[in-house]
Every structure is written in C-alpha cells, then in structure tokens.
C-alpha cells in the first residue's frame, strides 16, 4: 500500500482525474472530499461490503427456483394505477 502524508486542504490525484482532498481533521475523524467522474462509484468500504454481501445472499437461481413467495399485506387504497414502468415508446408518445 502506498502511504502518503497530507496536511489539511492538501490533495492527492489518482489517475489524473480523481482528486481526494483532506477537508477537515477533528480528533480521530478525517473528512475527505472526493472529486471523481460520475461513472466512478465512491463508497464507504463497510457500507459497500455490507450491501455487496446482501446482494450475493439475495441472488436466486431464477424465478423457478423460488417455490413460494412471501405473503405480504395488500396496500390500502391501491395508489398507483399508472403503467409501470413507463417504457421508451410510451415516453415518446407524450
């Protein structure tokens, strides 16, 4: 692992287009500002791993592999009667 020392308001540049800046240091909490292109996902590691693990658990071998779906209460006063989801063709017609 590359280890760099940075002071408050100093940054590092990754791959020429991702900037990580030390925005605040308060005791054992370091606040980082991250500037990255929209297509670069940035997550807190523990949250990322928690969701990743859950996604793996939730993956099924398809519709046929789940014998019975849970029985959920019907929502009161069926709110949305609109088409769901709206498809591209429907959007074009509007």
């Amino acid at each position, binding site marked *: 692992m590359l280890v760099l020392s940075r002071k408050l308001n100093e940054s590092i540049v990754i791959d020429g287009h991702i900037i990580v800046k030390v925005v605040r240091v308060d005791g054992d909490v370091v606040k980082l500002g991250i500037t990255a292109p*929209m*297509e670069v*996902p940035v*997550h*807190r590691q523990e*949250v*990322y791993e*928690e*969701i*990743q*693990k*859950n*996604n*793996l*658990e*939730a*993956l*099924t*071998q*398809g*519709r*046929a*592999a*789940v014998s*019975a*779906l*849970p*029985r*959920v*209460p019907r*929502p009161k006063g*069926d*709110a*949305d*009667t*609109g*088409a*769901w*989801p*709206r*498809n*591209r063709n429907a*959007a074009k017609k509007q």
Partner: protein
Amino acid sequence: MNRVENVASVPNPAQAENTISMPMGLLGFERIKEYVLLADPAEEPFLWLQVSNDANLAFLVVAPQPLLPSYKPEISPEDVAFLGLDSAADAAVLSIVTVRGPNHATLNLKGPIVLNRRTLVAKQVIPANAAEFSVQHPLPVIQP
C-alpha cells in the same frame, strides 16, 4: 437532498418484461449491466430483476413504500443527475428481497435500486440517510 417519492408499483400486465440498463451494475455485480424486469400479476407486488440472457440469475424485488410507508431514502444529487431524473414521478424505488425461509424474507433498505421509469436506467444507490436503514429489514408478511 432530493426526497424521491416511492412509487406504489402495480405492474402493467401489458408490459410484462422491460429491459433495464444498470451502467454501474449492482454492488458486487458491477460487470452485469443489462437486466430484464419481469412482472406477473400473480406475483404482485413482487417483480423479478433477472440478468439479461440468463434466467438462472435473478433478484426478487419489491417497491418498499406500500409495505413500509415511512421509508424515505434520500437520493443524492449525484445519483439524481446520473439517472437523469427530472421529476420525482420519474423515479421508482425497488428493494432487493432475500427469501430466507417459508414466508420469511428481508428487504435491503440500505442499498435500494432507483429506476428512471422514463429511460429505464437504474442504479443501486446508497442514500444519504443510509445509516437509518438495514440491509436486512424484515419484510412485513401475513401470518397464516
């Protein structure tokens, strides 16, 4: 922060299958970017988010809001921009369901899938208020 209203989804039987583009994939499944969303009236309110061209890989999903009316994920401006959401009405929120036993399942409220209903582009987002939510929220079920 934009509070994106959840959409009470009633799948239109006439649109039983929609191709969903997920340019970022799901967390842990970043390379899979094309899904089909399958709706069957007999399975309401559940839907299947199935990997395109692979019927053996699918996630059970549900619109959480009709089941949990207090659930209000705050979608970041970056995610709103990424999805090109012009209005809250264009957004549908779906939660991934993990079936854990007979009539027992949990919902991932921490990493919901937000879908632009107009463009059919979706992303698994981490809401700004994610700390309030669990990845294993018990699904409310009717006991026999």
